[in-house]
C-alpha cells in the first residue's frame, strides 16, 4: 500500500534525523570527524527520503485516494489537478510534512558548501537543523499527535464507526469499502482557499519561516564554539536576506488574497494569525539591520543573538498559529494534540539558546563604544528599538485578553484600533529613520553634517506637503478625522522618498562627471559596485511606496452599504454607479453563481463595467468576489453582499473607495527587485563555490612557479 509505504519512509526519515543529531554530538565530543561527516550525510539523506514521502502523498492526492484521511479532508473529485496537488499544504498534517521537506532541502543546500574555514561550526549547524527537522517529522510520525498524512480510514466491523488510524485496528475493514470506492467523495478544500494567492501564499511564508532556521543554526554554532566574531553573520547574510524576502512576500500575498477574496475591502485585519506571521518579520528585519553594526563596528553582539533566537522562537510559534487556518477559531487549538508539543519545543529551544548566550556573555562584549547620538550605529539602534516596540505592542495585543482575565476576571480584548493607534507613531518613526539613517556616518555624525545632506530634500518635502494640504482644502470631502495624521504620514513618506532619490542622484551624478559616463550607466554601475547599499535604498523606496498605499486605504477609505433596485443609480466618491443587470446561474463545477453587472461613470463618462459575484458552493459555503476598478489613484471596490434567492431586482451592495491602495502592490514589486540587488552574489572569492576556487589554485601555483 502506498500510504503505508509513505508512512514507513517518514519513520525512516525521522530515525535518520535523530541519528544525525546523535552522531554529530558524539563526533564533536569524541573529536571524531568521521562521525560528524556521517551526521552531515545522514541529514542530507533526509532530503531524498522526505521528497519520496512527498511524491507519495502527491500521488495519493492526484489519484483521489480517499481511503487516506488527509486526502479526504482536503480534496474532492471536482477539484482540478493543480488544486489537488497544492492541497498538500491545505491541511495541517500535509503542511507539517511540507515544512520538514523545505527544512531538509535548506539544510542540505547549506551543508553542501565548503567547510574548510568553518569546520567547527558544522556539527552544531547539523544538530540545530536536525533537531528542528526531527521535531516536525516527529509530529507526523508519532500516532499520538494524529498528524500522520498517511493515516487511513478503517470501519469497525463491530459498530460500523469509521476512524482514521495509522495502523489497522482489530476487527476493522478499510473504508471506503470496494463497492463505495468509485463514488465516495472527499470533503474538498474550502473554496476560499481555491485561489492563486492562497496557492503561493503559504509556501512563501513557509520558505521564509524555514530559511530563518539557517542563520539561527549558525548563531548557535557560533555560541557553542566560541567563535563570536562576525563570521557566522557573513556566512548567512544572503540566507537571511532571502529568508526575509520570502517572509515579506508571504505577508504581502496574504494581504492581496484577503483583498481579492475575503470581500471586506481590506488587506490586513490584525487578527492573531496575521500577527503571528508578522512578529518574526519584525525581529528578522531588526536583525538584518543590527548585524550590519556588528560587521562594521563589532558592537551589539548580544543583541544580535537575542534577535535571532527570538526570531526562531517566533517562527515556530507562527507555524503553529498560522497552521490552524483562516477559518478555525482560537478554540480549535485546545483540541489539537500538537499544541503542548509546540509550546514544549519552543520552551526547550528558547531556554537552551538563552542559556548558551548567558554562558558566552563575556565573550560577546563590544569592540567599540557608541558615543554619538547621531552616528549610523546609534540610529540603527533606534531603528531596532522601534521594531521591538512594535513587536511588544503586537505581543501585548495578543496576550492582553489572557492577562486581563487572569488579573480582573474580566475578558477584555483589543481590536484593530488598538494596533493602529499604538503602532502608527512607531511606523512613522521608522519611515523617517529610513530616510535619515543612511545619511549619517559610522562612528560620528553631527547635526551639521546631517543637515548639509538633508536640507535640499527637506525643502522639496515641505513644498509637497503644502501642496497636499492645499489639494485637500480644495477637495474638502477627503478631510476626515484622520487628516492631521495623514499629513504627518505623507510628510514622513515624502521626506524619505526624496532623501533616498537625492542620494541616488548625487552619487550617480558625481560618478558620471568623474568617469565621463552617461548618467544612467553611472547609476547602473554604482548600484552594481555597492549592491548592499543601493539594494537597501531600493528596498527603502519600495517601503515608502507601500506606505503611501497604506496611508491611502487606512486613512481615506470610505464605504457605503446600499440596497439597489435594478436600473438604480447612486453617487459615491465622485463615481456614478448603476446597477444594470443581474444573473444567477449554475457553473460547470456545480457552484451557483450570482453575478451583478454595474456600470461605472465619472462626470457622465462611461468608465467600465464591474461584475461583483456571490458564489455559493455545493456544500453551502459562499464566496464573495469583489468587482474592482483599480487605478494608481484609487480603487472602486464593489461587493454583492449575501445575496439571497428571490430578490434579483433588489440586491444589497457594499461599496468601498480605497485611495492609493495600488501603491502597496506596486511597492512590493520594487521590494523584490531591491532585495535581489542586495542579495545578488558578488565576486567575493569566499562566497564562490568550492570547486571554482579549487580551479583557481593551480593557476596561481603555476604563475608562482615561473
Amino acid at each position, binding site marked *: 500500500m502506498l500510504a503505508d509505504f509513505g508512512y514507513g519512509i517518514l519513520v525512516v526519515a525521522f530515525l535518520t534525523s535523530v541519528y544525525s543529531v546523535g552522531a554529530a554530538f558524539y563526533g564533536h565530543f569524541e573529536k571524531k570527524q568521521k562521525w560528524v561527516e556521517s551526521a552531515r550525510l545522514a541529514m542530507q539523506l533526509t532530503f531524498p527520503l522526505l521528497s519520496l514521502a512527498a511524491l507519495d502523498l502527491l500521488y495519493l492526492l492526484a489519484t483521489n485516494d480517499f481511503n487516506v484521511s488527509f486526502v*479526504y*479532508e482536503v480534496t474532492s473529485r471536482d477539484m482540478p489537478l493543480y488544486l489537488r496537488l497544492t492541497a498538500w499544504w491545505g491541511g495541517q498534517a500535509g503542511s507539517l510534512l511540507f515544512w520538514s521537506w523545505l527544512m531538509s532541502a535548506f539544510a542540505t543546500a547549506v551543508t553542501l558548501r565548503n567547510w574548510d574555514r568553518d569546520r567547527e561550526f558544522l556539527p552544531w549547524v547539523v544538530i540545530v537543523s536536525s533537531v528542528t527537522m526531527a521535531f516536525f517529522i516527529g509530529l507526523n510520525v508519532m500516532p499520538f499527535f494524529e498528524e500522520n498524512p498517511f493515516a487511513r*480510514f478503517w*470501519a469497525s466491523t463491530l459498530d*460500523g*464507526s*469509521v*476512524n*482514521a488510524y495509522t495502523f489497522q485496528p482489530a476487527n476493522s475493514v478499510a*473504508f*471506503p*469499502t470496494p*463497492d*463505495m470506492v468509485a*463514488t*465516495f467523495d472527499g470533503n474538498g478544500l474550502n473554496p476560499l482557499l481555491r485561489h492563486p494567492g492562497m496557492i503561493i501564499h503559504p509556501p512563501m511564508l513557509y520558505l521564509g519561516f524555514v530559511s530563518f532556521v539557517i542563520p539561527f543554526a549558525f548563531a548557535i554554532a557560533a555560541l557553542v564554539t566560541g567563535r563570536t566574531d562576525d563570521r557566522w553573520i557573513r556566512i548567512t547574510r544572503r540566507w537571511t536576506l532571502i529568508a526575509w524576502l520570502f517572509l515579506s512576500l508571504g505577508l504581502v500575498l496574504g494581504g492581496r488574497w484577503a483583498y481579492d477574496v475575503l470581500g471586506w475591502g481590506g488587506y490586513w485585519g490584525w487578527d492573531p494569525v496575521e500577527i503571528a506571521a508578522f512578529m518574526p518579520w519584525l525581529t528578522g528585519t531588526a536583525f538584518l539591520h543590527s548585524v550590519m553594526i556588528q560587521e562594521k563596528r563589532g558592537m551589539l553582539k548580544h543583541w544580535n543573538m537575542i534577535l535571532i533566537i527570538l526570531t526562531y522562537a517566533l517562527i515556530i510559534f507562527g507555524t503553529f498559529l498560522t497552521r490552524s487556518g483562516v477559518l478555525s*477559531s482560537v*478554540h480549535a487549538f*485546545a483540541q489539537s494534540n500538537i499544541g503542548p508539543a509546540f509550546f514544549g519545543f519552543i520552551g526547550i529551544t528558547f531556554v537552551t539558546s538563552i542559556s548558551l548566550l548567558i554562558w558566552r556573555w563575556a565573550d560577546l562584549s563590544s569592540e567599540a*563604544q*557608541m*558615543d*554619538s*547620538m547621531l552616528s549610523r550605529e*546609534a540610529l540603527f539602534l*533606534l531603528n531596532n*528599538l*522601534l521594531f521591538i*516596540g512594535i513587536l*511588544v*505592542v503586537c505581543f*501585548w495585543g495578543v496576550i*492582553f*485578553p489572557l492577562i*486581563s482575565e487572569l488579573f480582573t476576571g*474580566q*475578558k*477584555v*480584548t*483589543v*481590536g484593530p*484600533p*488598538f494596533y493602529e*493607534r*499604538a*503602532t502608527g*507613531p*512607531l511606523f512613522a518613526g521608522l519611515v523617517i529613520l529610513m530616510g535619515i539613517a543612511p545619511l549619517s556616518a559610522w562612528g560620528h555624525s553631527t547635526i551639521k553634517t546631517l543637515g548639509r545632506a538633508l536640507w535640499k530634500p527637506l525643502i522639496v518635502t515641505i513644498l509637497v506637503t503644502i501642496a497636499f494640504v492645499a489639494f485637500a482644502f480644495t477637495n474638502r470631502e477627503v478631510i476626515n478625522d484622520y487628516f492631521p495624521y495623514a499629513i504627518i504620514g505623507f510628510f514622513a513618506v515624502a521626506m524619505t522618498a526624496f532623501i533616498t532619490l537625492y542620494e541616488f542622484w548625487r552619487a550617480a551624478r558625481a560618478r558620471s562627471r568623474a568617469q565621463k559616463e552617461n548618467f544612467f550607466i553611472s547609476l547602473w554601475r554604482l548600484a552594481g559596485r555597492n549592491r548592499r547599499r543601493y539594494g537597501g535604498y531600493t528596498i527603502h523606496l519600495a517601503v515608502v511606496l507601500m506606505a503611501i498605499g497604506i496611508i491611502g486605504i487606512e486613512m481615506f477609505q470610505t464605504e457605503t*452599504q*446600499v*440596497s439597489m433596485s435594478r436600473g438604480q443609480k447612486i453617487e459615491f466618491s465622485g463615481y456614478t454607479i448603476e446597477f444594470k443587470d443581474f444573473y444567477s446561474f449554475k457553473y460547470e463545477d456545480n457552484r451557483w453563481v450570482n453575478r451583478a453587472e454595474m456600470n461605472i461613470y465619472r462626470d457622465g463618462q462611461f468608465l467600465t463595467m464591474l461584475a461583483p459575484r456571490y458564489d455559493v458552493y455545493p456544500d*453551502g459555503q*459562499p464566496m464573495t468576489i469583489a468587482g474592482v476598478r483599480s487605478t494608481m489613484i484609487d480603487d472602486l471596490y464593489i461587493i454583492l*453582499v*449575501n445575496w*439571497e434567492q428571490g*430578490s434579483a431586482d*433588489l440586491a*444589497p451592495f*457594499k461599496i468601498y473607495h480605497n485611495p492609493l491602495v495600488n501603491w502597496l502592490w506596486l511597492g512590493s514589486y520594487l521590494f523584490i527587485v531591491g532585495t535581489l540587488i542586495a542579495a545578488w552574489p558578488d565576486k567575493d572569492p569566499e562566497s564562490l563555490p568550492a570547486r571554482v576556487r579549487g580551479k583557481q589554485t593551480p593557476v596561481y601555483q603555476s604563475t608562482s612557479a615561473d
Partner: protein
Amino acid sequence: MSQSPKMKFMVGGLLILAAVIYLIVSSTTASAQYFLTVDELKAKGNSIANRDLRVSGAVLGETIEYDPNTLTLKFVIAHVPGETAQIDDEGGLAEVLHQAVIDPSRQKLTVIYVGAKPDLLRNEAQAIMTGKLDENGVFHADELLLKCPTRYEEAVPEQSGPAGN
C-alpha cells in the same frame, strides 16, 4: 555637555521605552472592549451604556427580522456561558446553544445591526457582536460574527451508503 555618552544613551533608551509604554497603555484604555455574556451585560445595566463592548449569545431564529430596503437587521439573543471549560462541561458549543434557545428563563438581549443579513444568521447560531448598548437596553452592533458549530466539517466521514446499511 559633561554627560558621558553612556548616560545619554541610557536617557534616550528610557525615553523610547516610556513612549512605547505610553502608546500601549493609552491605546489599550482607549480601545479595550469588554467581552461580556448577556447575563453580565444585564447585571452592569446602564453603567456601560455607550461603551465599546463585545457580547456573545445564541440567536433565537423566530425573532430575526430583516428589511432589505434599509438593510436593517433585528434579532434577539439568549445568554450562553462565556467560559470554554463550562461550555465543554455542558456538552459542547452546539448543545449549549440549543439549550439556550429552548430555555425560556434565559436573559435575552435585542440586537440591531445595519448591513446585509449574513447567511449564517439562523436559529441556534452563536452571534459575537461588537457595538454599544443604548439607554433602552438595545444593543447596536457595528460588527457581527456568526458561528454555527454544526457546520464545522467533520474529519471523519459520516457512515452512509452501503457500508452503513
